[in-house]
Structure formats: C-alpha cells, structure tokens
C-alpha cells in the first residue's frame, strides 16, 4: 500500500456516494476505496452473479494515444513496441487485453486497449498508472500524443442484469458483444462504453466525465437489480473467473507464457508471424513459446474447507520435500462455496488433477490442479 495516512489518500468522484451508501472505506493503491457495503462481500458477490453489481474502478488509469500522423494504425504500430499483442489488428470499436513487458520478458502491467477509430484508448492498473504513463511518454512520443484522462471516472456494471440496466440509458448497449468498445451516450452523457469486465460475468465498463459520474451511478443504482459492490467481492469474483491480479498473479518476474496468458499473444507477434517480436523481452517470451517455460500459473481447488491464501507454499508431497511453488491468489469462492486459489508450479506438476499440498498454519492441506475459470464465464460473444 502506498499510503496509509487517510489524509494523503486520493478520492474518486464517487467517494461521497460510497460513504452515503455505507461503504467501508480502506486504502487501496493510494485511494480511499470501498472494500464492502452493508450487504457484505458474500452477498455482493452472489448478487453480481445473479443480478447486477456496480463497481467504482475510477482509481484505474485511463489514457488516450493519439497518432501524430492522424492514422490510428500508426498509434497501434507504436504501441506494439511495448506489448506482445497484435494491436494493428484491433478493429475500430473493438478492445483487446494486453501486457506491457520488460526486457526480461516480465510483465510491467496488464491493460485493455481499445480502438476508437482515430485514437487508442487504454485502461491500466491504478498502482501502475504513473509508471505506465511515463513508459508511454518515454517510448511512444515520436508517434503519439499521450493524454492521461485524469478527469474521467470508470464504472463497471457486471452481471446477468447489467444489459437491461444499461439499456434503459444507452439504447446501443444490447447490440454490443464481448470486447466491443467505443464512445456512446449514457443518460445523454458522453461516455466510453465497453462490453467487458473483471468478474467473468457479462457486463460493461463505462468511462464517464468525473463531474457526471455520481449522477450516472445514482441513475444505475435506482434499478433494484443493481447493488453497489466493493473491492472485496471484486477480488473474489475475478478469482473465480481465473483472472490475474497484477502484482500478485503476474508481475515483473512472470512472462506471459508462465502466466498461462498465451491466448492473449496473437500469432502475428510470435515466431514466424508477420510482426514477430519487436517488444521488450521478446527473446525470452518467444523462447518460452517455442521451447516451453519451466513453471506455469495454474488453478487450485482444495479438498477441504479451509481457504488457501496468497503466499501459501506449495509442496508435491504430504510431508518433506522441497517447496515447489507458491499460491499467488486464494480465498473462498462464494459461488462455489469452496476455497479456490491460483499459483505457480513446475510444468511437470501443472497437469489438471495433479495432487499437491499447500502449507497453511503448519499443516499441509491437499489440493488439486483445476481448470480455470472456476466459474463458467457468461460473456456475450
């Protein structure tokens, strides 16, 4: 945590709303954020899976990359210097998941990149946003104007009732499919809307000017299907969905291949592709693609009821032996009513069903390598 001092914590444009709704405020990535509301993490989680949840994710960074040439392909080509994804192929009105990599093939941050037709729109993690902006300025200023969109809030609306809740204020929302993204009016406010999220559920992320954020959030919350959801349930939802949390499941020491994110690296950037390599750490990352990595991020299900949390050391045997890996995220999955975790293990122990043990309070608890997502996602394809 960067800041413990309440006075130095930043507030999002929805801070007053959180407090008025009874949000329990905690420091997170330098912001004073709601970890839960009076309903509690368990109910908030389950409500998001059955109805709809509204999340304030305004602490995240929003940036525009505007091509100096006026051609969005030039911004896309420039961004490809920093990420192993095919950015040129993102069609106008579409969005893609990406990672900034470093020279060692590790991950500096993960992000969303959308093509808005004349520029690219990026959403990055709160804790990394200053470093990401500096990284973009240092490397892409020849081709792009980098605009940090500090005066925008970000609201996620997630769950099976999200579409109906948003459709009331945005007629175009129902026609969008997973990873569609672009400017849309919501309640006559000029927003950027994408059909995406961090819960495994169908839903939307809405970038809204800061001054209109509270009004929009209140309009959406008037719908009885929509409840405010805190960071606690955001974490349990993304964990059940098998999604990585930066700084925990992925960081500067994990390559995209080790992190089991191969699906996010298009063939055009891999060995033999039209624009193979050309991103930081390409030699190591492509070697991992071609020859395999020695460890891998896997899902883990416990046999018992005790949650296995971040930092728990993994072993191959019930007693003795060397540590083989570590849990990077773990807790209780409310939708499964069972513990769920993810962590890194040697590839020889990464096959589905492999029995492992996690040390929790001096005891080795049995686990098995399990498929992710733990809860089936419901994206609208």
């Amino acid at each position, binding site marked *: 945590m960067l800041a413990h001092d309440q006075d130095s914590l930043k507030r999002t444009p929805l801070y007053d709303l959180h407090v008025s709704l009874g949000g329990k405020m905690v420091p997170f990535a330098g912001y004073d954020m709601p*970890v*839960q509301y009076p309903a*509690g*993490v*368990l*109910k908030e*989680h389950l409500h998001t899976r059955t109805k709809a949840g509204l999340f304030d994710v305004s602490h995240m960074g929003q940036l525009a990359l505007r091509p100096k040439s006026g051609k969005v392909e030039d911004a896309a080509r420039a961004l490809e210097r920093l990420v192993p994804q095919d950015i040129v192929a993102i069609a106008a009105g579409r969005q893609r998941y990406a990672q900034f990599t470093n020279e060692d093939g590790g991950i500096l941050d993960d992000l969303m990149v959308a093509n808005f037709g004349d520029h690219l729109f990026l959403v990055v993690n709160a804790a990394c946003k200053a470093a990401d902006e500096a990284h973009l300025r240092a490397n892409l200023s020849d081709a792009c104007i980098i605009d940090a969109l500090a005066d925008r809030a970000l609201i996620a609306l997630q769950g099976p009732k999200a579409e109906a809740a948003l459709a009331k204020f945005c007629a175009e929302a129902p026609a969008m499919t997973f990873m569609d993204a672009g400017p849309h009016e919501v309640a006559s406010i000029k927003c950027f809307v994408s059909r995406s999220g961090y819960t495994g559920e169908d839903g939307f992320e809405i970038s809204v000017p800061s001054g209109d954020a509270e009004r929009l959030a209140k309009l959406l919350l008037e719908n009885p299907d929509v409840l405010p959801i805190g960071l*606690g*349930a955001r*974490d*349990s939802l993304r964990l059940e969905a098998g999604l990585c949390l930066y700084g925990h499941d992925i960081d500067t020491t994990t390559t995209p291949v080790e992190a089991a994110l191969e699906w996010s690296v298009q063939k055009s950037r891999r060995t033999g592709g039209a624009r193979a390599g050309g991103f930081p750490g390409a030699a190591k990352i492509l070697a991992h693609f071609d020859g395999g990595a020695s460890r891998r991020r896997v899902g883990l299900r416990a046999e018992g*009821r*005790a*949650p296995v*949390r971040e930092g728990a050391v993994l072993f191959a045997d019930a007693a003795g032996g060397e540590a083989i890996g570590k849990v990077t995220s773990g*807790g*209780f999955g*409310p939708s499964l009513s069972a*513990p769920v975790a993810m962590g890194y293990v040697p590839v020889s122990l990464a096959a589905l069903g492999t029995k492992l043990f996690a040390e929790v*309070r001096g005891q080795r608890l049995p686990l098995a390598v399990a498929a992710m997502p733990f809860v089936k996602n419901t994206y609208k394809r």
Partner: protein
Amino acid sequence: MTTTLYTSDHEWLSIDGDVATVGITDYAQQQLGDVVFVELPKVGRALKKAEAAAVVESVKAASDVYAPISGEVLETNEALAAEPALVNSDAQGKAWFFKIKIADKSELGGLMDEAAYKAHTA
C-alpha cells in the same frame, strides 16, 4: 450461575464453575463479515493465555482467535465446521468455539464485564 466476561480482542467467555465456554463477540463477527471457515483447537490441547487457539476466516481474510485464559480444551463446537455462518447469526450463543478447563482463576481478573466491553467497542 454463569458470568460472561470479555477480552479486548473481542472474545467472550461464559464462566460456569471451572469451565469457560469461549467464542467471538457479535461486534467481532460484524467486523469480520461473512464467516466461511472456522478452525478449532484439538480437544486435550493445553492452551496458554494469549496464544492463537482458533482461526476464523471470512471471504476476505483469516483472523486468529486467542486463548483468553490458560487451560485445557475440553470440547469444541463441531457445528461450526458444517455451518460457519452460525458465527454471524448467533455469535454469542450457538456459535461458541470451545470449552476450556480454567487453569488459573486469577487470569479472569484482567477481563472486562459487559459494561466495560460495551465502552471498549463504543
């Protein structure tokens, strides 16, 4: 005739002769949120005052429950394994954690009565 005492760590003890029944307070369960798992000490374990005796876990985090006094664990509440949410619904009743044989009654002197505990959590 039983007396109920409290610790500053939000445990309650119901004293009946030389046996104390121990649990966490309603205030504690509210702070924890939805309880999803409880780990209890083994029957027969000799607990020392202030050592970690049990663990209570919410969706978010694990918290230790400390032995409020020294003594041998006589019995644990098996109902909590099947229904951890009892801690939320009846923290100071059905959701007792364990019973211990009080080793040293003088340790009770440092505990709070209900009025003092109310002031502590106010």
